[in-house]
C-alpha cells in the first residue's frame, strides 16, 4: 500500500483530534496566573484623541492594569512593520502604532488596553475607560480619497496616496487605436470580510529571568510573526518562540502581524504574567483585515474576429487606514501581473493607486489580487463577446494560450509554467453537455424563464514563490520552504516543516509523499508544523504555497535520506553504492532484488551505527530548503447555470461544473474539499457578501446579523472534474489549489446571471447581486440594447 499512497483519497491524519474536541486552538490554552486582555476601540473613524482617563477602569474589580499607546511606546514597543514595499511605486509607509496615540484613523482602532483576571471583568473595565475624542471628517471611498479637499490620514501620504504602481506590456495605445471594438466597464470589486470561523487570539508569556517570550497565536506564518515581533518589541528573534497551535481557518486574514500580538507581549512583560486576548466576532469585523475593495475603470480592445488586442485599466485600491503586513503587494504584484489571464493578450497597461481611507486595513484574502484580476478579464471578455455577438466559449477558444508544458511568457513579464486551457474548457463543456444546455436555454426562454450560463476560464498565480522575485518586487522576506525528515530507530518518521497549515491537510498529504517515496506506512509518519522552536525557518501557509513549495523541500530532504540509505544499504549488503536501486520500499542490489534492505532496516542501523560505513555520519535525518524557480499557475474552467426569478430578483443556482488543473494530485479528496470551499467563498462575493461603510466610517455590516457568510442551503452539488498538467517548477509537478475555487467562481456566477438577464437589456449590476439589485436592473432595463 505504501507505494500507492500518492494519489490516494485516504482519510486525514488531522481528523481524530478535531472530531473529538481534543484539538487545541489558541483560546483553548490556559496558563497558571493567566490574565485576560480587552481592547478599547475607537467608535470614530477619524478623530484626535484629546485625552484618556484610565483611573476609573484601573480601580475596578480584577483589573491588573490599564495601558495606553503612550505606555506601550515608552516601554520601547515600536510600530507595526509593513513587510512589502513594491519598488518603483513611490510607496509611503506611515507609522502604525499598535495602540493609537494622538489620532484614530478607523472605527475599531485600538486606543487603550485593559488586563484583568477574567474576560468578563476585562470587558467591564474596558467600558469604563474614558476617551475624549475630537471627531474629524471621514473618507471611506478610495477614489474619492485622492480628490482635492478630502480628509488626510497620514502627513507623509499627500492625497492619501500610498503608492502608484504600473504594469505595462506591448503597446496598449497602438492596440486600442487598431481595435474594431472597445468595451468599457467600471467594476467595483467590493470589500469582503474573510470570516475565518475561529476569531483571532494571542497568548503571550514573557519570562523576564531568561528574557524569553512564548506567543501562542492564530497565525498562518509563525516564523514571520517571530521576525516581525523582534522588530517591534525589541526582544531578540532567537529568544522568541511563536506557536501557531490548531488554527481555525485563515484565508489570508491570519497572515499579518497584528497590533494585538504586540499588545499581549507588552502586557505580559509589564505585568509578569501570561496574558491572553481573544477577539469577539464584532471586533474581528473591525480589527482583522478585510479583502479586495477595488474600484476599476477597465477597457478591452478587440478585432471583429474576436481577437483581444489590448487591456487597459485604472484601479483605486483601498488599503484602509494603515498598511498591514502584505497590503501593498496584493493589488499590484499579485493582481496586475495576471491581467493576461488564460489568454494571449499582448498589450496591457494598468495603473494602480493604493489609497488610505478611514476603514479597516486590507490585506490578502483568498485569492489576494487574483480574483480582482480574473473578474476583470472574464467580465470584459464576455462584454466583447456580447458586442460581437460571439458565443462566450468561442471567443475564449480564440484567445487561449495554446497548450504548453515548458513555460509561456506573457505581456506582463511573467512566465507561466504549464497550461492546457482548451483541455479544461472542453472537459467542462462535455460534463455539462453545452450544446444541449444552450438548446434548453432557448426553449426555457420561450417560456419566459430567465436562465443563463456563465463561464470563467481562469489561470492564476500561486505557490509563492521564487525568492529572487520576492526580493525584486519588494517582499520583505524569502519565499522558499524547508523540511526536516527524521527517522527514529524504530523506523517511524517525524517531519518538521516551515509551512503552517490550518485546514489544508498537509499532515496527511506530506505523509503520503514520504510513504510513497520511501515505503514507510502513512500512519508511521507524523508531520509537525507551527512551532518555531521545533520547526525550521519557513514562510508559512498562504498563496497556495504549502504543497507546491513545501513539497519541494520535503522531496529535497527525502532525496538526501534516500541517498544516505543507498550508502548504508551498500555497506550492509557489501555492494557498490552505484549498484543499489530503490523501489517500493526496498533498497536492493541491481539484478539481485532479493538482496535488499527496507528503509526501516536502514533507519535502525543508521541510528545504532554498529555496522556502518566509516566516514559516514550516523543518524537518518536530513533537512532541505527549496526555492522554486517560478510560481505555479493552476487553471481551469468553471461553468455556472442560474435561473433568475424576474419578480423577486432571487437567483437560483441550478448547476455548477468545475474543471481544475493543479498538476499532479496527492489526495483527490483533499483537493476536492479545497475546491468546494473556494467555490462557495467566490459565490459569496458574487451574490451576498460585501462590507459596507456609511459616510461616518461606521461599518454597516457590523456583525454576522448583517454580513452574509454563506450557509449550506441553496447550493447544488458541485460537479468536479480535473485535468492534470504537471509543472516543472517542483519535483512532484504539483500546483496549488487552495484559492482557485474562489478566483474562478465569482465571474462564473456573475457572467451566468448577466447571461440570464441578457434578453432584457439590463445595464451593469454591481456585486453582490442581491435580489433588490437584480430587480432594479430588470426594472430599468432597455430591451433590445
Amino acid at each position: 500500500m505504501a507505494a500507492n499512497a500518492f494519489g490516494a483519497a485516504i482519510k486525514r491524519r488531522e481528523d481524530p483530534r478535531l472530531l473529538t474536541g481534543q484539538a487545541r486552538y489558541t483560546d483553548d490554552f490556559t496558563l497558571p496566573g493567566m490574565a485576560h486582555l480587552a481592547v478599547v476601540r475607537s467608535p470614530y473613524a477619524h478623530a484626535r484623541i484629546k485625552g484618556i482617563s484610565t483611573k476609573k477602569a484601573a480601580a475596578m474589580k480584577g483589573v491588573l492594569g490599564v495601558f495606553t499607546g503612550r505606555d506601550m511606546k515608552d516601554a520601547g514597543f515600536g510600530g507595526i512593520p509593513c513587510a512589502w514595499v513594491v519598488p518603483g511605486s513611490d510607496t509611503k509607509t506611515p507609522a502604525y502604532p499598535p495602540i493609537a496615540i494622538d489620532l484614530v484613523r478607523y472605527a475599531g482602532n485600538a486606543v487603550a488596553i485593559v488586563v484583568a483576571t477574567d474576560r468578563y471583568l476585562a470587558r467591564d473595565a474596558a467600558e469604563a475607560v474614558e476617551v475624549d475624542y475630537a471627531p474629524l471628517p471621514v473618507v471611506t471611498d478610495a477614489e474619492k480619497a485622492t480628490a482635492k479637499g478630502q480628509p488626510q490620514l497620514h502627513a507623509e501620504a499627500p492625497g492619501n496616496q500610498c503608492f502608484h504602481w504600473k504594469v505595462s506590456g506591448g503597446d496598449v495605445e497602438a492596440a486600442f487605436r487598431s481595435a474594431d471594438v472597445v468595451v468599457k466597464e467600471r467594476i467595483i470589486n467590493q470589500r469582503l470580510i474573510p470570516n475565518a470561523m475561529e476569531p483571532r487570539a494571542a497568548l503571550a508569556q514573557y519570562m523576564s529571568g531568561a528574557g524569553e517570550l512564548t506567543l501562542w497565536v492564530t497565525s498562518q506564518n509563525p516564523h514571520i510573526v517571530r521576525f516581525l515581533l523582534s522588530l517591534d518589541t525589541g526582544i531578540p528573534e532567537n529568544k522568541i518562540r511563536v506557536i501557531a497551535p490548531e488554527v481555525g481557518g485563515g484565508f489570508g486574514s491570519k497572515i499579518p502581524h497584528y497590533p494585538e500580538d504586540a499588545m499581549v507581549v507588552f502586557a505580559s512583560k509589564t505585568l509578569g504574567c501570561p496574558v491572553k486576548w481573544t477577539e469577539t466576532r464584532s471586533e474581528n469585523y473591525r480589527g482583522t483585515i478585510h479583502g479586495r475593495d477595488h474600484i476599476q475603470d477597465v477597457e478591452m480592445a478587440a478585432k471583429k474576429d474576436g481577437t483581444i488586442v489590448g487591456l487597459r485599466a485604472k484601479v483605486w485600491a483601498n488599503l484602509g487606514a494603515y498598511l498591514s503586513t502584505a497590503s501593498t503587494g496584493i493589488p499590484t504584484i499579485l493582481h496586475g501581473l495576471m491581467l493576461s489571464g488564460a489568454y494571449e493578450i499582448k498589450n496591457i497597461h494598468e495603473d494602480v493607486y493604493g489609497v488610505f481611507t478611514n476603514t479597516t486595513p486590507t490585506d490578502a484574502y483568498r485569492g489576494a489580487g487574483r480574483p480582482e484580476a480574473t473578474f476583470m478579464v472574464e467580465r470584459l471578455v464576455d462584454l466583447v463577446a456580447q458586442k460581437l455577438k460571439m458565443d462566450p466559449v468561442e471567443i475564449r477558444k480564440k484567445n487561449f494560450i495554446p497548450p504548453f508544458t515548458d513555460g509561456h511568457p506573457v505581456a506582463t513579464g511573467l512566465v507561466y509554467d504549464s497550461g492546457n486551457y482548451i483541455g479544461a474548457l472542453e472537459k467542462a463543456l462535455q460534463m455539462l453537455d453545452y450544446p444541449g444546455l444552450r438548446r434548453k436555454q432557448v426553449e426555457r426562454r420561450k417560456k419566459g424563464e430567465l436562465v443563463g450560463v456563465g463561464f470563467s476560464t481562469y489561470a492564476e498565480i500561486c505557490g509563492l514563490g521564487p525568492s529572487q522575485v520576492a526580493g525584486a518586487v519588494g517582499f520583505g522576506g524569502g519565499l522558499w520552504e524547508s523540511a526536516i525528515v527524521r527517522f527514529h530507530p524504530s523506523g517511524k518518521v517525524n517531519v518538521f516543516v516551515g509551512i503552517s497549515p490550518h485546514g489544508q491537510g498537509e499532515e496527511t498529504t506530506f505523509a503520503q509523499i514520504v510513504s510513497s517515496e520511501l515505503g514507510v506506512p502513512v500512519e508511521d509518519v507524523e508531520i509537525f508544523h507551527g512551532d518555531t522552536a521545533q520547526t525550521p525557518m519557513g514562510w508559512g501557509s498562504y498563496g497556495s504555497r504549502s504543497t507546491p513549495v513545501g513539497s519541494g523541500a520535503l522531496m529535497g530532504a527525502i532525496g538526501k535520506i534516500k541517498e544516505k540509505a543507498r550508502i548504508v544499504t551498500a555497506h550492509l549488503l557489501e555492494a557498490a553504492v552505484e549498484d543499489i536501486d530503490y523501489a517500493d520500499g526496498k533498497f536492493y542490489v541491481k539484478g539481485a532484488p532479493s538482496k535488499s534492505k527496507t528503509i526501516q532496516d536502514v533507519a535502525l542501523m543508521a541510528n545504532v551505527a554498529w555496522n556502518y560505513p566509516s566516514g559516514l555520519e550516523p543518524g537518518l535525518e536530513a533537512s532541505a530548503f527549496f526555492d522554486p524557480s517560478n510560481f505555479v499557475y493552476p487553471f481551469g474552467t468553471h461553468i455556472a447555470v442560474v435561473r433568475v426569478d424576474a419578480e423577486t430578483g432571487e437567483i437560483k443556482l441550478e448547476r455548477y461544473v468545475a474543471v481544475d488543473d493543479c498538476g499532479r494530485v496527492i489526495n483527490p479528496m483533499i483537493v476536492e474539499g479545497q475546491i468546494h470551499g473556494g467555490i462557495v467563498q467566490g459565490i459569496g462575493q458574487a451574490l451576498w457578501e460585501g462590507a459596507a461603510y456609511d459616510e461616518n466610517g461606521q461599518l454597516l455590516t457590523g456583525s454576522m446579523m448583517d454580513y452574509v457568510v454563506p450557509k449550506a442551503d441553496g447550493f447544488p452539488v458541485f460537479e468536479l472534474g480535473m485535468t492534470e498538467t504537471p509543472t516543472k517548477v517542483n519535483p512532484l509537478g504539483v500546483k496549488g489549489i487552495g484559492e482557485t475555487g474562489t478566483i474562478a467562481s465569482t465571474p462564473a456566477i456573475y457572467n451566468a446571471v448577466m447571461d440570464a438577464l441578457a434578453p432584457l437589456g439590463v445595464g451593469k449590476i454591481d456585486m453582490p447581486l442581491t435580489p433588490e439589485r437584480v430587480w432594479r436592473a430588470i426594472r430599468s432595463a432597455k430591451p433590445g440594447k
Partner: protein
Amino acid sequence: MQYPVSITVNGVPRKHPVEARLLLVHYLRETLGLTGTNVGCDTSQCGSCTVLLDGKAVKSCTVLTVQADGAKITTIEGLAKNGKLHPLQDAFWAKHGLQCGFCTPGMILTACDLLAKNPKPTDAEIRHGLDGNLCRCTGYQNIVAAVREGAARMAKA
C-alpha cells in the same frame, strides 16, 4: 453574586457556583476545561458553540449557565464511547467533512438533533437543518455527504 448550579455534562454530575451572566459556553470551556465547544461569533449565528441540552441542539453562547441548572449536556467530548467514535464522527472522517475543524463539533451535534427528529433526511433537509451552523472552509458539500453517511450508519446500528 454567585448561584449554585448542578449540571450533568457528558454523563458526569458537576456542581459549581457561577455568576448569572456566565454563558454556558464559557462554563464548559473555562470552568470545566471542555474546550471542544468553540466560540465563533457574538450574535448567535455561527453555531460553533452548539451542544446538546437535554438532547436538543442549542447554541451555548446564548444560554446562561444558570438556565442550564438541572440539565444534561452533551458536548463533542461526550460523543465517543469507550474510545469508539460516534457514527457521525466516523462519517465526517470518512467523507472529509471538515478542514480546519473549528465548526465541526457544533456541526456534528446539530446533526445529532437533526437525525434524531428525521433519521432519513434528504440533502435539502440536511442543508436546511444546518442553517444555524456556518462553515467557511468546506463549502458544505462534504458536510452534507457526512451527515447522509452518518444517518446511514446510525440506521444500520
